[in-house]
């Protein structure tokens, strides 16, 4: 993975000093909260329900054991002993003090970490495929380009006061494991005539008006990749709406202009931007790519796995995925143990994951947008040992992509933007479906819960989605069906009137019962829904 050189380190260190000074000036009253707010947001610091919340960046979800241990350290020293992994591959701490923030950022900088631009109306963390470098279906590891984008977007002087936040994802396979088309810019690395390039999808997003990003340009030569991105952003900065916070994302601009007109404006700007010489030379990409070279895999390792232990076999079948290198596997660590809080991990658990990664995964981990963790390169001969260590740390829930592998935002328990609590709903649903056999029978069922319209739980992309709303001062939950964040991207359809907390759990069960009744062959829930349509489910829910 990428390692800072002296330039990268100097930039982060300067940022630490800058924010320390901004905090000092805020505490001394030299700047107002209104003036300070964008500055602290651009350092990932929110004022939330209980305290400040700090969102630490995990660039394209990749980190090593040293960094993981620092995250555990931050949790212990400055927070309340746990962290929350997010739907943008970052980590959040909920109990932060403003006057500790400079020290936290200084600590993070010692291991090449930061909280730069994890909030604010700027370009956010670049996300990517959690199986990058390990999956057989990618045409290249997308992360060097994610790193190029990270550097280009960091402290970009023109794009730090955008109309609204800006989220970019980069993938390199046809299977979309990063919900690419639900980003402001989604990039898929593609090949044409043997040459690498990028397909740009622009204008996706969730929130109040979810949209799937249309294809704006099917092939940008890879050497023009940053110029084209710059052009996309400049058109947005100049013409994105600033009159209404709910209409300020780029998806609204593209919707209002039309994809074709937006593409035309970008093309015009791109022709101009290309003359500015902002694209780094091939040598820079080579330098970065070298950090993402495959680890020193052992050749000739066996693909045999002893499945005698039935619990191990269950976990193996559910959480472990094929690796492109013979003898190796991709391990998914679910942070969704039934009854626990989705995406949360204690500092002790974070340390365990660090240790396992260091010993068994070439010192690398990934954070997924489903709030889980990946060990990308585990030798099959080590899987049983890894599993045992995960069991000891309560990290072995064998439920990847099953109904209890719920994505849930922090919701009203933590978030000042929320209208309803989301975590208790997730817990109740997981409890209702606690029987693992029942879950495995239901199969792949991606359930996502958001506590408000901002959709941080990605509920629009849930096979089953739940949105918490405030109905006359009471929490109410809307159900939606048929969303997908994969390459078959679709937005969920609201079923009808909402439910209370217990009602929505019952409604979910009626939906799954209906699915079992109607499914054919090996259909997933999503496939059955798409085949039979909305009405049978609506009737099952409401009678």
């Amino acid at each position, binding site marked *: 993975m990428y390692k800072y050189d002296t330039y990268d380190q100097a930039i982060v260190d300067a940022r630490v000093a800058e924010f320390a000074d901004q905090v000092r000036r805020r*505490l001394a009253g030299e700047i107002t909260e209104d003036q300070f707010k964008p500055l602290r947001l651009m350092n990932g610091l929110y004022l939330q329900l209980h*305290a400040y919340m700090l969102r630490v960046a995990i660039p394209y979800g990749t980190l090593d054991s040293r960094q993981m241990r620092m995250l555990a350290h931050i949790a212990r020293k400055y927070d309340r002993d746990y962290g929350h992994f997010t739907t943008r591959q970052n980590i959040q701490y909920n109990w932060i003090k403003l006057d500790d923030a400079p020290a936290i950022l200084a600590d993070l900088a010692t291991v090449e970490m930061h909280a730069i631009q994890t909030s604010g109306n700027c370009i956010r963390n670049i996300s990517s495929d959690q199986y990058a470098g390990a999956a057989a279906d990618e045409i290249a590891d997308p992360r060097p380009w994610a790193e190029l984008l990270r550097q280009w977007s960091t402290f970009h002087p023109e794009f730090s006061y955008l109309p609204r936040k800006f989220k970019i994802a980069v993938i390199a396979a046809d299977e979309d494991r990063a919900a690419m088309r639900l980003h402001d810019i989604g990039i898929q690395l593609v090949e044409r005539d043997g040459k690498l390039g990028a397909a740009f999808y622009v204008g996706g997003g969730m929130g109040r008006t979810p949209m799937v990003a249309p294809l704006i340009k099917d092939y940008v030569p890879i050497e023009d990749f940053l110029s084209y991105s710059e052009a996309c952003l400049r058109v947005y900065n100049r013409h994105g709406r600033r009159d209404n916070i709910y209409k300020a994302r780029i998806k609204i601009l593209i919707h209002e202009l039309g994809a074709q007109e937006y593409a035309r404006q970008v093309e015009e700007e791109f022709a101009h931007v290309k003359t500015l010489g902002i694209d780094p030379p091939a040598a820079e990409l080579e330098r970065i790519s070298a950090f993402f070279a495959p680890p020193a895999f052992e050749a000739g390792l066996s693909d045999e796995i002893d499945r005698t232990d039935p619990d191990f076999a269950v976990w193996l079948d559910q959480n472990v995925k094929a690796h492109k290198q013979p003898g190796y596997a991709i391990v998914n660590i679910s942070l969704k143990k039934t009854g626990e809080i989705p995406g949360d991990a204690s500092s002790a658990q974070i340390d365990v994951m660090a240790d396992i990664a260091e010993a068994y995964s070439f010192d690398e981990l990934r954070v997924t947008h489903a709030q889980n963790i990946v060990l990308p390169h585990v030798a099959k001969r080590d899987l049983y040992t890894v599993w045992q260590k995960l069991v000891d740390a309560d990290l072995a829930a064998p439920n990847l992509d099953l109904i209890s592998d719920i994505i849930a935002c922090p919701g009203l*328990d933590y978030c000042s933007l929320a209208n309803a609590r989301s975590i208790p709903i997730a817990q109740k649903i997981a409890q209702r479906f606690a029987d693992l056999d029942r879950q495995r029978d239901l199969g792949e069922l991606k359930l996502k819960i958001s506590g408000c319209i901002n959709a941080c739980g990605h509920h629009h992309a849930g096979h089953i989605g739940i949105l918490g709303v405030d109905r006359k*001062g009471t929490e109410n939950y809307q159900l939606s069906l048929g969303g997908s964040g994969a390459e078959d991207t679709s937005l969920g359809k609201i079923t009808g009137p909402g439910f209370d907390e217990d009602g929505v759990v019952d409604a979910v069960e009626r939906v799954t019962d209906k699915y079992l009744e109607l499914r054919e062959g090996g259909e997933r829930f999503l496939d059955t829904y798409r085949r039979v349509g909305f009405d049978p489910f609506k009737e099952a829910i409401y009678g």
Partner: protein
Amino acid sequence: MKLLTGNDLASGAVTWWTGNGWSIHVEDAIDVDEHGDAVLAVEEAARRVNAPYIIDAVGTAEGPRPAHIKDRIRALGPTVRPDLTLKPADPNAGDWVI
């Protein structure tokens, strides 16, 4: 009744106006009646509170109970982590929120 609430600037802790200062315990909050805006302005300008606002609450035997669940969660702590709330030893504390 009306309560004045906000967060402590340096620590971020949820605070409640007691009449002559700020407390993290909603039980100490007073009814600011019509004076809330004036107090808010003074306290915010002096940086003794950050992001203050006024809420409705109902007086009860246990003290003021904010009208909206969001402020009750702010007053106590997350419903899903009783151990992290202001009343970790009280098994019924969550009922007060919900």
